[in-house]
């Protein structure tokens, strides 16, 4: 891909050569552009329909082949049907041209087609600008550090391609052009940082987002049927990060309350929408210290907010309303499609709704009549023997412990009477099985109970101190209502697999294959294991600060930053002013080396002066009145011949170049003098 400098290219137009005979330089430039476009399309390939990938890649291959073989670009009557076919394909696949995915796929195909239709310099700009836009759309899928790095690489490639087409005569080597691209990019970084943090932001969206804007996010759902949570548990994605202001409670106390599932149809637990807003604080009586948390929630596409059990009030969100209801579920007014931050206060020791009427508790006692007869019989038997509600709870937990229940992510399939099958058949399951079986047993024995889903546990990142809660920490537990006490958290899974509550899921499950090997290495207290662990934590912490400072940065954070810089009263106009002042300062600092008009000393004189400096350091300074010749004459008398000879050669060459008829080009004279100067000691 090394371009060659071709004499004779210099004066003629770029376009003419493009059309007629492609020269080696054009080939190299085109291949560079193709590479850049490929880099741009790379993150999209995982998302597009297979035929879009195949289409754009084969179009680019076609272009590459035409360039290599030096053939003409296809004529319009070849290209237009191809383009129309591809457009039709878009419509057939996405049934629209306007959606986000359809639009991006169309742009990608358009770019590939445009590569085959480049005749003038204008077309080059269209290709490059389209690529820049496609880079932006690649951030729809991922804004991770890796995708940022890939995008930066693509920007560098595009800049290098763009500037490569600007040369008219001499073309420096690819590496030199990349270096120029790097220089431009590197110098743009300070400006970027200033603009990123200080350019006045407007909180989006400006217009309605297309329906598919936030597709494919994982998180807890507001219903629970067998397998929901165990599917989530396989995901190592981070659900949220928490910074606790005080000491971190024991892991077995870290229950992150999410969604209350109160309605049961025999198979699926679902959320009741008619929950009333939380009553006054008398509803929740705290018996202990307040746990303050700062939570950074990853986008879930849902409205649920999480906090430690038991949150006391709805958190304040930036630019969004939030609420908390009587079931102590917290949610936002709109789906969370961007990472958000909020503060929450929770109480580890509490009484919740200790005075509820029988009427209010009725929904928490409902069971579908025709399901799980065996379970109902068992509950009735329990109820007959014991009068104390607490004892019934303990008896059921004992039952889980005593009988041969096991904890597994891959339980056998259950029949229509799922709870019966589980309690008296398979006895193998995941937290959702235990929680739902427990609640059904409670309700059947007359104790109000409900399922609560959320997350349990979390791991502290030693690097930045944030508690990281992953999707694999998703958990379901139960709450029973006991008179005089209120809602009480009961985790039946803990009765079966206490290690699930005390440790992470990873250590309770034996992974197979490579993951198992890694787990094995990590569980050992070997140097290797701890190295991997700490690298993991570092990476995670880096991701967290990336989220905090890059991805989560918005208008509110911008104002926060200003406040921490000591500017309390702040408005938009002031922010603009600061932005412009600061960027003007940085721009002038950057521009200074270019704009500064230093005294014009020719390269020849520079070399002469450095020789004089050299000699002055040795104790033979040039007198102000001395010309090179007279200076040389004086040096001849005071310096030994061996030392004088190279100085003489330099001085005569300099004099000849400076005062004689300059036969050689300046550049070659300078080169010659440099060699002579190096010989002078």
């Amino acid at each position, binding site marked *: 891909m090394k371009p060659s400098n071709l004499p004779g290219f*210099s*004066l003629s137009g770029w376009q003419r050569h493009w059309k007629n005979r492609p020269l080696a330089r054009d080939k190299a430039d085109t291949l560079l552009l193709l590479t850049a476009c490929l880099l741009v399309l790379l993150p999209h390939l995982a998302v597009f329909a297979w035929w879009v990938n195949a289409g754009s890649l084969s179009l680019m291959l076609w272009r590459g082949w035409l360039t290599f073989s030096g053939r003409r670009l296809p004529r319009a009557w070849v290209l237009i049907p191809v383009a129309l076919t591809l457009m039709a394909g878009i419509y057939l696949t996405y049934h629209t041209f306007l959606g986000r995915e359809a639009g991006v796929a169309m742009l990608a195909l358009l770019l590939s087609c445009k590569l085959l239709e480049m005749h003038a*310099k*204008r077309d080059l*700009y269209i290709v490059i*600008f389209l690529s*820049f*836009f496609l880079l*932006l759309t690649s*951030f*729809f899928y991922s*804004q991770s550090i890796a*995708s*940022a790095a890939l*995008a*930066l690489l693509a*920007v560098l490639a595009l*800049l290098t391609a*763009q*500037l490569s*087409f*600007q*040369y*008219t*005569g*001499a073309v420096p080597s690819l590496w030199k052009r990349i270096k120029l691209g790097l220089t*431009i*990019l590197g*110098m*743009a970084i*300070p*400006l*970027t940082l200033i*603009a*990123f943090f200080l*350019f006045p*932001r*407007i909180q*989006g*969206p*400006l*217009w309605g*987002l297309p329906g598919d*804007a936030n597709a494919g996010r994982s998180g807890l759902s507001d219903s629970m049927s067998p397998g929901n949570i165990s599917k989530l548990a396989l995901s190592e994605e981070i659900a949220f990060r928490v910074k606790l202001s005080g000491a971190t409670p024991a892991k077995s106390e870290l229950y992150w309350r999410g969604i209350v599932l109160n309605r049961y149809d025999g198979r699926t637990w679902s959320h009741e929408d008619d929950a009333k807003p939380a009553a006054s604080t008398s509803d929740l009586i705290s018996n202990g210290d307040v746990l303050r948390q700062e939570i950074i929630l990853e986008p879930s596409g849902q409205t649920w907010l999480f906090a430690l059990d038991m949150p006391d009030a709805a958190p304040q969100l930036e630019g969004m309303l939030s609420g908390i209801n009587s079931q102590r579920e917290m949610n936002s007014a709109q789906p969370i*499609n*961007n990472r958000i931050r909020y503060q929450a206060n929770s109480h580890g020791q509490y009484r919740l709704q200790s005075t509820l009427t029988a009427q209010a508790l009725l929904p928490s006692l409902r069971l579908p009549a025709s399901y799980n007869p065996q379970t109902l019989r068992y509950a009735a038997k329990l109820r007959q023997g014991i009068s104390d509600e607490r004892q019934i709870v303990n008896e059921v937990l004992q039952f889980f412990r005593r009988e041969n229940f096991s904890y597994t992510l891959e339980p056998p399939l259950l029949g229509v009477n799922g709870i019966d099958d589980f309690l008296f058949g398979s006895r193998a399951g995941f937290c959702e099985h235990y929680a739902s079986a427990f609640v059904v047993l409670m309700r059947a024995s007359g104790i109000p109970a409900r399922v609560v889903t959320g997350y349990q546990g979390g791991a502290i990142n030693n690097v930045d101190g944030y508690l990281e809660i992953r999707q694999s920490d998703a958990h379901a537990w139960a709450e029973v209502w006991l008179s005089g006490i209120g809602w009480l958290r009961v985790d039946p899974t803990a009765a079966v697999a206490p290690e699930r509550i005390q440790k992470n899921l990873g250590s309770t499950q034996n992974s197979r294959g490579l993951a198992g090997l890694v787990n094995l290495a990590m569980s050992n207290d070997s140097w290797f294991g701890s190295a991997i662990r700490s690298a993991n934590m570092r990476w995670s912490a880096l991701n967290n600060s990336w989220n905090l400072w*890059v*991805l989560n940065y918005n208008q509110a954070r911008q104002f926060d930053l200003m406040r921490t810089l000591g500017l309390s009263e702040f408005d938009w106009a002031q922010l603009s002013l600061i932005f412009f002042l600061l960027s003007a300062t940085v*721009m002038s600092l*950057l*521009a200074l080396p*270019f*704009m500064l*008009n230093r005294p014009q000393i*020719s*390269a020849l004189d520079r070399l002469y002066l450095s020789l004089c400096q050299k000699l002055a350091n040795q104790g033979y300074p040039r007198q102000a009145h001395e010309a090179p010749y007279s200076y040389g004459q004086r040096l001849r008398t005071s310096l030994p011949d061996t030392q004088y000879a190279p100085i003489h050669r330099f001085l005569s060459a300099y004099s000849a170049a400076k005062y004689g008829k300059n036969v050689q*080009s*300046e*550049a070659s004279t*300078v080169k010659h003098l440099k060699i002579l100067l190096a010989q002078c000691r």
Partner: protein
Amino acid sequence: MSIISNIGPALADKFRKLVFLEHRPESGEVFLKQRRVFTLPSKAGWMFVLLLLLLFISSTNYNLNLGFALTFVLAGCACINAFLGFRNLAYLHLLAGPAAPVFAGEEAQFTLHLINRRQHYRYALHVGFAAPGHTEQAVDIAPDSRCTLQLSHPTLQRGMMAIPRVRLQTWFPLGLLRAWSTWLPDAQVLVYPQPEAFAPPLPVTGVAGKEGQGHSGDDEDFSGVRAYQSGDPLKHLAWKHIARIDLDAGGSLITKQFSGGSASDILLDFGSLPANLDLELRLSRMTSWVIAADASGLAYAFKLGALHLDAASNEPHRLACLRALALHQLPSPEAGV
């Protein structure tokens, strides 16, 4: 309407002079200091601005913080591009070389030197006349070196022609901005009148009568050559001379002259041309005669108005004659500007 169209260009001219510092011709080496280099977005640059706007709006709408970062990186690159484009052109030294005289209708060749005393390579400088319709030359200048280029400009009228304004511009490195500067060097080219295409033969004075009865047949009496006149015998044509001159450039046939006929001096007298002929046509005829006389190698005397030049046939003589013809009845160049 006509008033506006008359005032428009004048105002535009004033504006250019005021903003772009277009002053009188500059002599000697000219230094492109920063005040003389201008930058504005090119067409692609305006497209880029639109792109940045689109990127910013999309990033806002979709809350793409990396989209903002991309937008700002690209905007930053455009700023850096402006600096680099400026540096590519600014602080260049310009020098105009002498231009060889030409005949009207020919292309005048102006030699320009661009001197780069800086340590960086200057790429893709486009140099040409500022007037529309001129093709520009693209040059690169290595550090500490110079580049010499020739710009040609068609000539239409005799006299001193000043070099038109030269424009230097560059789109380097990203093509988003155009940095440009103009330069009006104090260089002129002398344009001789256009030689008449089919000029009458050279006028030979005085002794034409003798010639007819002379020893036209004797090769021994050969004394020289003169321009062909109708009636000269074909065998007296000086073929060797004819082969050397260019008939298309106004030369004519040459007849050998033989002694016996007096040494017929050629006198090119402007005053002897018919006064009813157009001045320019008379000058053209004189010009073609000077060319013809010089080509024939004969000594010729020259009379133009108050100017009398004795017969001679050397290069300085020819140049003096042509110069006089070029500048005849024109204001002197010093007073003209």
